[in-house]
């Protein structure tokens, strides 16, 4: 790889990282929010490396090809480095979409972690809940506090077989490679189009014994409302919806 190509590659990769993490929120499609400062620092560093290489290192022509006398040959990068153009250009020009219903449909049903005690549920109705909290309440709360309560959850639509559908969240721990999926099966309304973001209100769908593992993570839907996709979609946050 020649000098010009190296300069181009370093600058493009730096710009790509800055574009995704500093100028836009695109990085949230790929990695967790906490990596943002590191991505910005990396972008600046790569940009500086590229500019420094352009400014300080004169092109020495083909001379170093045969000059091993001064040891390591830094002026040509290995051919494999060309592959780095793919993520750089992809970040700048052709950002892949956020993960959605396809990934969720292929994921297994994650079992929720054991939770020891449960606090009393707030009295507000509908009660905003995360998908994980709802599943944990339904399957582990021996007090069965969730019985009869109207809850509100937000997520996107993952169609299943035979008209069934799930309200879904994909959660990143670090990046899209470790994505985990939580799903709540929805009853009582036909499936909306895949990947639609919804706020759903409803009550627990009676199936299995509430407060035990046999209880289904499922909801009888009373109402749905389209919402905009959250900026940081890959968490399982409480629904941030204006009070009506």
């Amino acid at each position, binding site marked *: 790889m020649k000098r010009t190509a190296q300069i181009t590659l370093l600058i493009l990769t730096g710009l790509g990282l800055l574009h995704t993490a500093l100028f836009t929120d695109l990085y949230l499609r790929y*990695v967790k929010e906490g990596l943002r400062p590191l991505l910005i620092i990396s972008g600046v*560093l790569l940009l500086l490396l590229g500019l420094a290489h352009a400014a300080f290192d004169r092109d020495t022509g083909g001379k170093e090809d045969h000059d091993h006398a001064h040891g*390591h040959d830094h002026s040509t990068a290995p051919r*494999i480095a060309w592959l780095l153009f793919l993520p750089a250009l*992809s*970040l700048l020009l052709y950002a892949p*979409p956020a993960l959605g219903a396809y990934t969720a449909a292929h*994921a297994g049903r994650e079992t929720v972690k054991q939770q020891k005690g449960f606090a009393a549920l707030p009295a507000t109705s509908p009660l905003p809940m995360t998908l994980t909290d709802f599943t944990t309440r339904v399957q582990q709360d021996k007090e069965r506090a969730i019985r009869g309560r109207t809850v509100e959850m937000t997520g996107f639509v993952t169609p299943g077989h035979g008209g069934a559908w799930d309200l879904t969240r994909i959660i990143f721990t670090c*990046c899209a490679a*470790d994505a985990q999926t939580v799903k709540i099966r929805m009853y009582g309304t036909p499936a909306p189009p895949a990947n639609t973001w919804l706020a759903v209100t409803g009550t627990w769908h009676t199936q299995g014994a509430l407060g035990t593992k046999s209880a289904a993570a499922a909801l009888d839907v009373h109402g749905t409302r389209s919402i905009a996709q959250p900026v940081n979609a890959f968490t399982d946050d409480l629904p941030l919806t204006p009070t009506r």
Partner: protein
Amino acid sequence: MPKTDELLDVTEAVAPAAVHPPERRRRRLPRRPPPATAAVTALGLAIAALVLSGTPWLNGPAVAAWRTVCLAITVQALPFLLLGTALSGAINAFVPADLFTKVLPKRAVLAVPVAGLAGAVLPGCECASVPVANSLIRRGVTPAAAFAFLLSAPAINPIVLTATAVAFPGSPAMVLARLLASLATAAVMGWLWLWLGRAEWLRPVVRHTGHQHGHSRFTEFRLGFQHDFLHAGGFLVLGAMAAATFNVTVPRSVLDTFSGSPWLSVLFLAALAVVLAVCSEADAFVAASLTGFSPTARLAFMVVGPMVDLKLIALQAGTFGRAFAVRFSTATTVVAVAAGVLIGGALL
């Protein structure tokens, strides 16, 4: 002037007069691009054509998910790779050559566990440790000790251990088991290299010669950093592509098939750690979510993951050579699974 050059001058009537004869003669040689360059160029052109034509195939859900995961692994790893290659460049340019030989015990057998413990000071995930280990070897550290460092650093640094404690609340034994099993694997692999390793498996890496008299240290650092980053970065992309392929194509329902059998589940989760290539800072959370599996199987997942996975194999093949990467990764997997089973059986 030799006769050949005059002949060349006849054919090259417009040659710039300032060029010195020996250099001009070299330029006259036909420069055909090597096949690999041609292949990569063709691949790049093909991808560019696909992208520009806006083919629906590239936006199909499976391909889109593959592109997302592949880019996510690369983006997530880039800061750590930069850290690793910057450290490697700094070790080469600024650290005196005899520092490591002074600090580490003289006998290689003792240097191995010391280097393994030293891995605790490199914060970050596994991508950072490959270039650093390489620069240690170039500065005269015995390869066995450098490999112990390479294996232990991503698994036992404070960030990863804290993440493990957070992911497994109420079971501090898991953190201890991960620390011990990772250290044991790193030390055993170092000793194994002393016993069976052969220098010819390693790509000759003596080209980096450290600080040269008369050169600016900072320029040396900058150029070494840049070269190592571009080199490792290319292999990172290759590894991310392989890992994304498995990530998207292996359905998670396969998990349920293996969770029942205690022995198969250990082997299966070890294999899963290799193909998923989850960053070592996040793998504890993935392990915690595999609730159907025994604690020992989940420990094996966390011990193997930071030491062997597809992107690491690609990085190692690029840095140390393919002959090394294949043998080293295979042996590490075996040792890591054994350590996970023994220590997991004792503690969990």
